């Protein structure tokens, strides 16, 4: 992975930078000793590491503003960081950058059940947002699988999704407003507790901009009343084609499940060995979950089960208790951990049109043979968001590169069939150099023009999202 050469001038200004930061921030909010900055050298994409120049951990929007103003004046790049759980290298530092971590900003600022929103500082974790409103039976809908650890700041930066977005949408559909600090230190407010904002949809533009347009310090989030109940059903099929037809038929029948999850045989076997969830050994497994009162669930599952039976399942398991529901979800929820037990793995995140599922799985199988690397597929089938997990051995020379090449081919395939490179993890550095496979130069140019507006010096989250060749002229300017 190419990264731009660090700016020697900036590195040379380190002591001056640190003393300016210490003038405005408490001592314990500035980390600059090399042994300590190393803790921030990577996020969850651990294959790439680089210690930053310094790390700052502000506690307020004002402190974030002070930090950005100083860095802006001194021309120091800034890498915003939530909880550091990005799988795409979205928070990878450069040697000449300051990491701005919002982990200390975890306050709940306002909760309003009548208007159905919560306002939080963005260092708060995703799950603890739901935790803050659970006593009134409310929840925050986007549920990325890292939700125990990941921060709202990162969710906004990457427009994170989750298993339940078929019904509830992703972060951008649940974000009502932000307080954001611009690179020059200016603080702006966008949106609020009302629904549609006037003027341009800057909120929609900020969400998913990977921390390159500003640092979001506070967020107004939509909260929803919890449904009365939820129940999953598990079904196994002999072929992924048939499983794909089942998904399509369920959707066409007018049922809108909250989740439709898909696992293929390699993934089923790995999770069985690890979690013993009692999954059938079959080519394709679906978990479909619906919500409502018991009677409403019965009504929806009646439709779903009739469709499932019509396609001759090798297994069809209804849940009759919370324990059985938990067992149905157990294997799916431990899928990543299970694959990790076998080997190192790389988790991909492309999206495809649902109708292309059988074709794409067949091609991935063929490529797996060509590359000599095993792959398992976990998949949000309702919305076409795939998570192929490629197994490799990090200690074997050349294996990581081989795995990356395989991954790139899978993502190109996703684009080729009408999909995209990333459904919910973001581009980061991981998919940066594949952007030309999805976008024409002009398509990228207009996106970069947006960055020019918000961050004319290109100091925020450097070297992410755009291929370095595409951004070279702007970064040098």
């Amino acid at each position, binding site marked *: 992975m190419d990264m731009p050469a660090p700016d020697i001038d900036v590195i040379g200004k380190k002591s001056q930078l640190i003393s300016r930061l210490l003038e405005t921030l408490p001592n314990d909010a500035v980390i600059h000793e090399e042994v300590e900055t190393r803790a921030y050298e990577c996020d969850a994409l651990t294959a790439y590491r680089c210690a930053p120049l310094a790390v700052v951990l502000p506690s307020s929007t004002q402190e974030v503003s002070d930090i950005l103003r100083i860095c802006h004046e001194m021309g120091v790049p800034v890498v915003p960081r939530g909880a550091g759980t990005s799988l795409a290298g979205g928070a990878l530092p450069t040697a000449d950058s300051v990491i701005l971590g919002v982990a200390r900003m975890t306050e709940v600022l306002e909760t*309003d059940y*009548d*208007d*159905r929103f919560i306002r939080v500082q963005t260092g708060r974790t995703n799950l603890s947002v739901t935790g803050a409103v659970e006593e009134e039976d409310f929840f925050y809908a986007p549920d990325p699988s890292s939700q125990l650890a990941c921060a709202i700041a990162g969710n906004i930066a990457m427009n994170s*999704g989750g298993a339940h977005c*078929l019904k509830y*949408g992703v972060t*951008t*559909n649940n974000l009502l407003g932000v307080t954001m600090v611009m690179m020059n230190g*200016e603080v*702006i407010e*966008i949106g609020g*507790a*009302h*629904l*549609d*904002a*006037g*003027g*341009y*949809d*800057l909120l*929609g*533009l900020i*969400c*998913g901009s990977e921390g390159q347009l500003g640092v979001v310090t506070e967020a107004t989030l939509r909260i929803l*009343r919890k*449904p*009365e109940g939820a129940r999953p059903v598990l079904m196994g099929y002999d072929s992924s084609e048939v499983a794909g037809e089942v998904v*399509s038929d369920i*959707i*066409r*029948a*007018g049922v809108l499940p909250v989740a439709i999850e898909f696992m293929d045989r390699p993934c089923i076997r790995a999770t069985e060995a690890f979690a013993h969830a009692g999954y059938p050994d079959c080519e394709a497994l679906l978990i479909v979950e619906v919500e409502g*009162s018991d*009677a*409403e669930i019965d*009504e*929806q599952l009646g*439709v779903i089960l009739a469709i499932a039976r019509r396609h001759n399942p090798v297994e069809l398991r209804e849940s009759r208790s919370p324990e059985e529901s938990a067992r149905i979800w157990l294997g799916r929820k431990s899928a990543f951990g299970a694959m990790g037990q076998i080997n190192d793995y790389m988790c991909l995140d492309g999206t495809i*049109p*649902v109708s292309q599922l059988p074709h794409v799985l067949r091609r991935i199988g063929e490529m797996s043979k060509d590359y000599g690397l095993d792959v398992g597929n976990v998949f949000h089938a309702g*919305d*076409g968001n795939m998570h192929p997990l490629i197994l490799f051995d990090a200690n074997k020379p050349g294996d990581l590169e081989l795995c990356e090449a395989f991954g790139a081919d899978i993502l190109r395939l996703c684009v080729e069939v009408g*999909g*995209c490179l*990333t*459904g*919910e993890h973001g*581009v980061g550095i991981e*998919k940066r150099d594949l*952007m030309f496979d*999805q976008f024409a130069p002009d*398509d*990228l140019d*207009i*996106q970069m023009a*947006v*960055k*020019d507006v918000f961050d004319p010096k290109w100091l925020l989250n450097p070297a992410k999202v755009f291929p370095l060749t595409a951004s070279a002229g702007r970064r040098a300017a």
Partner: protein
Amino acid sequence: MEPVSESELSEMIAGADGPLRVVGGGTRPVGRPVEGATLALTRLSGVVDYEPGALTLVVKAGTPVAEVERVLAAEGQRLPFEPMDHRGLLGTKGAPTIGGVVAANVSGPRRIQAGACRDHLLGVRFVDGTGRILKNGGRVMKNVTGYDLVKLMAGSRGTLGVLSEVSFKVLPEPPAAAVLHLGGLDETRAGEAMCAAIRSPFEVTGAAHLSEETSSGTSKTLIRIEGFDASVSYRAGRLADLLADFGEVTIERDKAEIARDWRALRDVAAFHGRAGDVWRYSVRPTQGATLGALLRAMGARALQYDWGGGLVWALVPEGADMRPDRLDGHATLIRADEETRTRLPVFQPEVPPIQKISQALRDRFDPRGILNPGLMG
């Protein structure tokens, strides 16, 4: 100018030597009046791709909304965000286009549960002010590849680029619906009733209130739910219990009747054919009634509340500036003569830093300033 293809659209914009007034069906003349040669998208029409099993639809921007709705209905599906038809309110003729819906981010009563137009917009193709053909997003439901210009284009009213193609997430049309009716509530009580309903787990897909001036002497409060038959019956029953304190609840189950009522609410039929300007306010739902009282004091003649109180429509005397000084939300002047729309800001004025960003975006997307210049600011 009426391009028949995206490439022709691109050539027309690249070759334009003055301002362009970009229109779809021309049924929503909202915004400051624009001088310029008319660029109409109506001939850029047709369904490009529709996969009912994937809930995705791709159409050319000039496609009539009616055609989109017909194509979806044939598969038992619909646009979830219930776009308003502005013709009755604005007294316009012609066929509304899907591109116009997107350009104005038009959403209806279901917005509280399903989301807005922008929430269902998966991808756009558009031509910028220099004639470049650009794309963003795509036709899949989950996509975070690059910046989200899809959202930016929704509601930008042709000032950043001219839409040539749009793709949507669509949803199944539920087989059943029910509406709970409450009569005679004042606006504060109606706000509380709507709030109690939306706060429940029973998935309300519409919550509206018509003030007494708009509904022949007695105010009306309506709560809508949709879904499978047994589920709708169950939820209607539970909601009726929940709302018992607010007075007598009657339940409407006739689907055609419900469709008619909510089309009228969606299109603000209560104001059709009545003289006066029309303003639209987006606020916190619990502030709806307070705003309503203020608007009445400022001279409003009739009010309609939607989105559980979060959307307020006001019929007001012609030419009056009805934007309150301190408004936690925003006000838009939807219907007024050209003089009023030139004198008063149509959209909520932006604070200087946001104004600067908006202008800088326009300068990048349309460096010559020829696309609907001045319409949004």
